[in-house]
């Protein structure tokens, strides 16, 4: 285990997110529901700063009982993090690519102790393509 103190929880509560650097790795911390998520700030597409993109609900197409398309709808319980470079979307909290779920952002376990946010850098969960 290689835990690094990266932020105070109050900072995230204020802004919802923070980009930190541990060694040579940029990490995007996101406050999502009651959890703190930590992703490498590198998109799987072309390396964009994924953690600096829009947080927005997933979108689905809605049909009426007769099978007629009636419009697009936000999915209330599915949030996406959108890479600002070209729009690749990642499902929170896991970081799976919405259009290719077999791919996932590199993420790190986070613990919060005494209001301090700690990231375990040795336990990353996916290989990214920085």
């Amino acid at each position, binding site marked *: 285990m290689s835990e690094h103190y990266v932020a105070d929880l109050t900072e995230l509560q204020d802004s919802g997110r923070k980009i930190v650097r541990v060694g040579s790795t940029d990490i995007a911390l996101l406050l999502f529901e009651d959890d703190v998520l930590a992703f490498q700030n590198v998109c*799987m*597409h*072309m*390396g964009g700063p994924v953690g*600096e*993109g*829009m947080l*927005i609900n997933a*979108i689905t197409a809605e049909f009426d009982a007769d099978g007629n398309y009636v*419009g*697009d*709808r*936000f999915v209330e319980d599915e949030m996406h993090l*959108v890479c*600002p*470079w*070209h*729009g690749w*979307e990642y499902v929170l909290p896991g970081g799976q690519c919405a259009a290719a779920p077999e*791919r996932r952002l590199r993420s790190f376990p986070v613990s919060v102790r005494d209001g301090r946010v700690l990231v375990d850098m040795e336990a990353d969960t996916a290989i*990214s*393509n920085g």
Partner: protein
Amino acid sequence: MTDQLLNRTGTDLINTGVREGFNTREHLRNAERQAQDRGFDKFTIVDVDAHHYEMDHWPAIIKYIEDPVIRHRAEAAIHSSDPARTILHNSPLPQNMAGRILRERYRRGEPTDGDTHHEVSVIRRQMKAIGIDYQVVFPTPMLELGLHPDPLIEIAVSWAYTRWFTEEVLADDPAIKTMVYLPMNDVRASLRTIEQFGGKPGVVGFMITSGRFQAIHSNKYVPVFRALEERGYPLGFHAIHNAKERMFEGMNRFISVHALGFVFYNMVHMTNWVINGLPERYPNLKVIWIESGLAWVPFLMQRLDNEFLMRSSEAPLLQRRPSEYMGEMYYSTQPMETVDLQTLQQTMRMINAETQLMFASDYPHWDFDLPSTVCDLPFLSQEAKLNILGRNAVRLFGKEHFDAEVDLGTAVEGNGRARVSQQ
């Protein structure tokens, strides 16, 4: 005292005589006199068609859109250059994916140091960040001008743009280049454009926007192609998407219009170019197909070859198969279809990528590519990478347009594997 009307950038537009503090009542003072003289107040007048400008109140209006997804799109469009147009009657969705792509919104107001032209500063920044030494820059919405119903508008606007760009922007930085817009709805204006801007610093070629309906093999264009060939300038066909294209009217999504639009127009022009024998008629005119990606080229090669073998009588000028001519043309990479590397490898073989393909970023547009899209490809040789990333462009445009010591490189560092988006 009169006041000068200011345009959006605050510069003098024209002395209109409009009074300071425009006031509608004052503006219509003579109408009020007529009303008094004629006693309009003595009877009822009903005006059954008048207007106001709802765009002036756009944010106040769209908050009442009930569909949350469409409301979000409308809100995001506020940050585009023409918010009402974006949602009302242009594309079914803006390029920036309802605000998901952040560049368009913030780039315009990006602070730069005051001594250098804002465009030059921003272009330099993007080049430095991406690692680009020379950049050929094109306009954006002007690429639709070929579809304008009034050819005089195409002529006037493209002329003005090119004067501005060559005199005020390109002059500031020899690393920034352009291929000049040809107003092809008017041959004389196109010839004047070649005369005027050929030889200007930073001009490396001329460009036809592909969104236009006139046949490219029309006899009227003979003087244009001759003029370019004589001067040794390459001719680019820059693709566009166009949601109002008759065949695309049923397409409700930007992704659909964009995916087809950028290849559709270039496929039409390429087919006419080859089948009518223009490569034989202008053998020294180099042609570049820009911003259509690559996947369409092998499709069209196979399609045209197959039909040519059966109907060669309809393409009497061709000495060889269509694909052979196409393999001698030039292509820009972006947006390079990278999801199936085996297919991409075949594509590159068919288009002779090692000598005919040139890297393009298309930055800052939503689907831009980085040089890593080329240099991380596992099947390309070092030589091929160097060629695609720079040498092919220097050879095509001519070394005279680049620094005397332009460094064509000896090695390209990939990361040893393709991007994760590539399988």
